Structure formats: structure tokens, C-alpha cells
């Protein structure tokens, strides 16, 4: 545990996909960050990090959105996002946008340096150990590419999940291979994306696990959507949902229970 006189102020960046498709991941993140001793705020003026524009080659729109993110979040000690891909966009790629703009480049560098993907933040910065979390099941893990390769997120989720009572982890063949999501790629080249995610779904099913975990909602939605279409019973959750004890609701693409 880091010793501080005051808890760190964390600006929570929910990311556009979690905001829209799976708010539970956002609430699980808030719960974990607070349990880890952070003072968390959710700035109202946040939207998207700009990655869809960046990966489509629209640097002007990306720059506008990056400036917005910088303005909204630069006052915090840390910026934390429940996504390796969005955190990596800010941390690893924003630098490419302001090469010719020294004033913004300085603000960008400061923000990039304090931006974290949540699982690595919890472990590497806050030295957090989940207390009292339990999950009754056998899970396998998919390492999403940006988190894995840009940010080195690999051991942290496994270590965190190691503290979850009742959870058994089994390895996934090709755990570090792309699931075929790729942001706009999956709708620009749907048949190629499908061939890749079919292969991924088959490998997930072959593990015999009843649960798939990961750290990026885009990839999880892709794999859950494919597993659902294949009629698979595998439940898909974001890692924070399990760690926060909030994986008791419907898994991604599974129906809500009637109340």
C-alpha cells in the first residue's frame, strides 16, 4: 500500500462503450477504486477518447477530442479507464497528435503519464488486494491487445483474480491473439472479423470454462456476441465485475432475470 497523507484524486473515464453498453462495468470500477483508497470523481464533460477517429485516419477530429479529454482530466492525480484500449489511446498514442504544438504537447505528456488501465492501476499503483470477493465458477482469460502490448497488462488481472474465492482459472489457447474486434474493423471487414472470432469462440469453448473474463468491453462484446450466436452457455464478464462482486447480474448478451 502506498502511504499517502491524502487519498489520490482519480478522474474516472468510463469510456463511450461502457457508458452505453455496460454501465455495470463503470459502477464496479468505482467500487473497486474506492475500496482501493481513491477519491473518485466522474467528470460530466467526458465523451470519447477519439480512438474511432484516430484509427480511421481522421487526425483533426482526434486532436479536437484529445484536447477535450486533456481539459476535462488534467486536474486529477490519475485518470483511470476500465479499458486497455482507451487508456492506451491516451497514454501511448496522444503523443503522435501534438508533435507540432509544444503547448498542447506538454499538457498531453502530463496527462498521458498519469493515465492508467484499471486492473494495472489497482495492482501496480494502489497495490490493491480484493477483499471478500467470490465467484462460483471456472473462468478463462482473454488478454486484449492494446492493454497487453501497449500497457503490459497481463499478470495484474490474474493476480487480482487469484484473490477471488471459489474462482478457478483455466488457460485459453491463443489468449494473446486478437479476437477480431479491432474497433471499426469488425464492421468494415465483417467476414474477416467473423472468421477470427469464430476461431476464438471455438477455443474458448474448448477450455471447458463456464466464464470468459477480460478487460475490454469492445472485445468482450465481440466474443460474447459470437458465443451467444453459437448458442454457447459461456458467461462473459469484465474482470472488474467479478472483482467487485458485481457479476451476479446478467452476463453480456444474457437476459435480465424477471423481478
Amino acid at each position, binding site marked *: 500500500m502506498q502511504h499517502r497523507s491524502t487519498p489520490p484524486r482519480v478522474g474516472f473515464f468510463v469510456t463511450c462503450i461502457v457508458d*452505453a453498453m455496460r454501465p455495470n462495468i463503470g459502477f464496479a470500477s468505482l467500487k473497486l477504486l474506492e475500496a482501493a483508497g481513491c477519491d473518485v470523481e*466522474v467528470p460530466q464533460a467526458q465523451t470519447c477518447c477519439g480512438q474511432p477517429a484516430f484509427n480511421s485516419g481522421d487526425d483533426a*477530429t482526434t486532436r479536437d477530442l484529445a484536447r477535450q479529454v486533456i481539459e476535462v482530466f488534467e486536474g486529477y492525480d490519475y485518470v483511470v479507464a476500465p479499458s486497455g484500449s482507451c487508456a492506451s489511446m491516451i497514454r501511448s498514442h496522444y503523443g503522435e497528435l501534438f508533435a507540432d504544438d509544444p503547448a498542447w504537447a506538454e499538457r498531453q505528456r502530463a496527462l498521458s503519464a498519469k493515465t492508467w488501465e484499471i486492473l494495472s492501476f489497482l495492482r501496480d499503483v494502489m497495490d490493491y488486494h480484493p477483499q471478500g470477493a467470490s465467484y462460483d465458477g471456472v473462468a478463462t482469460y482473454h488478454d486484449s491487445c492494446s492493454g497487453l502490448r501497449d500497457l503490459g497488462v497481463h499478470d495484474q488481472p490474474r493476480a487480482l483474480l487469484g484473490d477471488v474465492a471459489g474462482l478457478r482459472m483455466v488457460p485459453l489457447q491463443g489468449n494473446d491473439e*486478437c479476437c477480431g474486434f479491432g474497433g471499426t474493423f469488425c464492421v468494415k471487414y465483417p467476414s474477416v472479423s467473423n472468421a*477470427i472470432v469464430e476461431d476464438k469462440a471455438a477455443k474458448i469453448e474448448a477450455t471447458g470454462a463456464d466464464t470468459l473474463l477480460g478487460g475490454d468491453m469492445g472485445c468482450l462484446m465481440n466474443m*460474447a*456476441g459470437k458465443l451467444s*450466436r453459437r448458442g454457447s452457455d459461456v458467461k462473459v464478464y469484465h474482470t472488474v465485475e467479478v472483482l467487485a462482486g458485481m457479476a451476479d447480474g*446478467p452476463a453480456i448478451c444474457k*437476459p435480465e432475470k424477471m423481478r
Partner: protein
Amino acid sequence: MKQTSEHFKAHVTAALADPTLKIALNRTTTLLRERRAQVIADFGEYAAAREAAQKIKDHTLDNLAHYLAMFEANAVASGAQVHWARTPKEATDIVTAICKAEGARSATRVKSMLGEEIGIGEALAAAGVERIETDLAEHIIQLAGDPPSHIVMPAMHKTHEQVAELFREKHAQPSNSDEIAALVESARRELRPKFLNADIGISGANFLIADTGSIVTVTNEGNAELTTTPPKTHIVTVGIEKIVPSMAHATVFLRLLSRAAIGAEITQYTTFYNGPKRAGDADGPETMHIVLVDNHRTEMLGQFLRPMLRCIRCGACMNHCPVYAAVGGHAYGAVYPGPMGSVLTPAMSDLKSTKDLPNACTLNGRCNEVCPVNIPLPDMLRSLRARQHQAGLTSGMTRGGLAVWGWLARRPGLYRRATGLAMFAMRVWSMNRGRIRRFPMAGNWTRHRDLPQPELGTFMQQYNRRSRK
């Protein structure tokens, strides 16, 4: 080969409908990935070697003219003739002029991607010179009339069962067995006499060594030596980026190349050639010609594509690319497929006809991770997308969609209301089934997979509701 990258999507459709291709690709990419992972894990100094390799290439590219001039002087001193070609046409004109001057009727050839790049097969055919491909995989695709589908394993798209069938049809004394060893024997019977009777031997080079004027070939079948030694004339066609300063520098790459390419510590044959046969030599060609080819390389040197010139053509990027592994090399419609090809093909032709290539990538970063010279392929592919966007080549749909979304995303209040409404509509549409099988304007997603039912309220709506309480 004729470049058909503009038909990428049609090629993809055909490739995905071919179950045998899927088997062939899956067999080989799986094997290559496993072997590479093992041999890299066993190579203690891998990270240091990779960094050294990158530095050597960067230094050489910074001083390219110096090292090329040094190479030329030393190659000429050892008796070779050096030619310079700016374009593929200039290169093949030089080759066919040599063939003509020698009165050559047949030429044996060692697989070389530079040869494919300049269209040497077509040029030899036009000049009336019989071309005998001596690499086993090149022999297979020559018999099949296919272009290569991989830069190291050009027949990767074929299963050995398909090869057995092809050999039975085309070989003079085929084997009845489908066993790989029997197929190799069949090819040997077919090729061996032709090796000895060829007038010209044509090769590429894996490296050019500046301070000795040597060229280096790295092969597994021994066909390079049999191609370059018996004929009277040896012609080398090679890209100028293959140069390294010295033997010692070349060894750094030799340790990386076969590990990255095929997951082996070293290949069966690594040969250094220093000029033609000298007085007292038992064998060797009487004349040796080295054709140094530019073909857009000096253009790439001066811009963001410069790191691409570090490439040693190992093919690791394509072996580890999920897109390549799904569709195979022919889908790219170009000499160089996969991630490295998706950078090189636009650089060597134009942005427009190759528009799909930089986009048909999930930016997963695996290619860069496995690249032995650390080429930032995903960054370069993304930069190519930015250039397409600047050139107005992106589709109206994409531009329009991005404009609307970007406009909204810059207005947080409006954005929150819009996403709230859209998610509410989607939730209603889901009929509380948990998953959505079809959704307006999301056909490219829902054709293959379900969409989840959104919760009641976006995160921001729910959060603000809770905070007000």
C-alpha cells in the same frame, strides 16, 4: 504478377469460402507460431540481438549511399559486374539483356521476393528464356500457375495432399505416395537434370555485405548453391535495403532471420558469394552480375515509411497476423502480403488501388511484437489511413459517420442525451431477451454475432440519478 489489391474484398470472399485453404493456413501458421515461440524463448540474447539489428539497419540506412558505394567497389574488385536499376523495368531489361548476350535458352532460379517484385518471370517468358524454379515451393506454384502467397513459404496456400495430386499430374515419374518425403523425391527427380543444364542461374540475396562486396543467400534446400554454381553466368537481383556494413553485422541478422521466419536456429545452407570463379577454383560461374534495385526504396527513405526498409523479409508478421491467417496471401492481390505487404504495396504503387490493405488490420500489434527488427507496422498502417483520409479516399459513409459522431462527441451534454436515447431504443428493441439478433444499421455486426441488450440508462444517466438521491 498483376497487382489486384483493389479487389481485396472479392478475394476475401473467395478465400473464406475455400475450406481447403483454411486447413492449409491453419496447419502452417499454427506450426510456425509454436516453433518461433519456442526458439525465441530458448534464445537468451534475443532482446539484445533485436535491438542491435534495428540499430545496424538504422545506421546503414542513415549512410545508405556510402555503404552502397563501398559494396559496389568491393564487388567489382572481386570480379562481379554491378548494375543499378531505378525501376522494375530497368532491372528486368538488364537481366534479359544479359540472357540475350549469353544466348541463354534456360535459367534456373532461386526464390527471391525481389524477383517477384520486378516481375522477372514475365520478363524471362517475354525474352523466350525457359524459367526453372528450383525452390520446392516455387516449383509447386510454377506447376500450378499460382503466384506466391507468402514471402518465405510461397505455396503456403496448398495442402500436401493437393501437392501430391499436382505432382502426379505434372511430373514425369511421380510417386504414388502422399508422404511429404516421397513428394520431395519426386521433385528432385524432376529438377536435378535441369539444374545441370541451365545457361543462367538467377538468385536474390538475403544480405549484401559492403566491406567485402559479398552477397549472402540463406536457404534450406541447397537449391541456391545448385542454381548459382553450375551455370556459366550468375545474376543476382537485389533490393538496395539489403545492405549491411560487414560480415560481423550480417551475423546478427543470421541469428534472427531463421528463428523469426521458420522457428529454427539456423537454416541448412548459408552461403557467402564473392565474385565469379577465380583462377584455381574448382567450379563457379564465369561471370557474376549484381543488379541493385531501387523501386521506390529511396523515396521511402525520406519519409514516415523509412523503418520499413529495415525489413529482412522473414514473414513473421504474416505468420502471426489474424487477418492473414484467415484469408491467406492471395487475398492481398500483391507480391508482398500480410502486414509488411500492406505497408509496402501502397508505397510501391499508389494509395488508391491499395485502399483496403492498411484498413484490413485490427491494429492488434502482434506483427510489431514478433518483428525481429522492431518495425512499427501498426503505426505505419494507421499513418497510411491518415494519408488516405487526407487524400479524400475514405468512403462517404465513413466520413459522414465520423463527422456526425465527432460533432456530437465534442458536445458532452448533447452526446449524453443522444446516447441515452439510442440505448433506450436499443433496449426496447431487444424485447428483454438479453441479446439482439438484428438491429437497423448494425447489419455488419449482427450478421455474424449478437448485440447485448443495454441496461436501463447509460452509465452517465444512472450515475447522475444516483448522485441526486
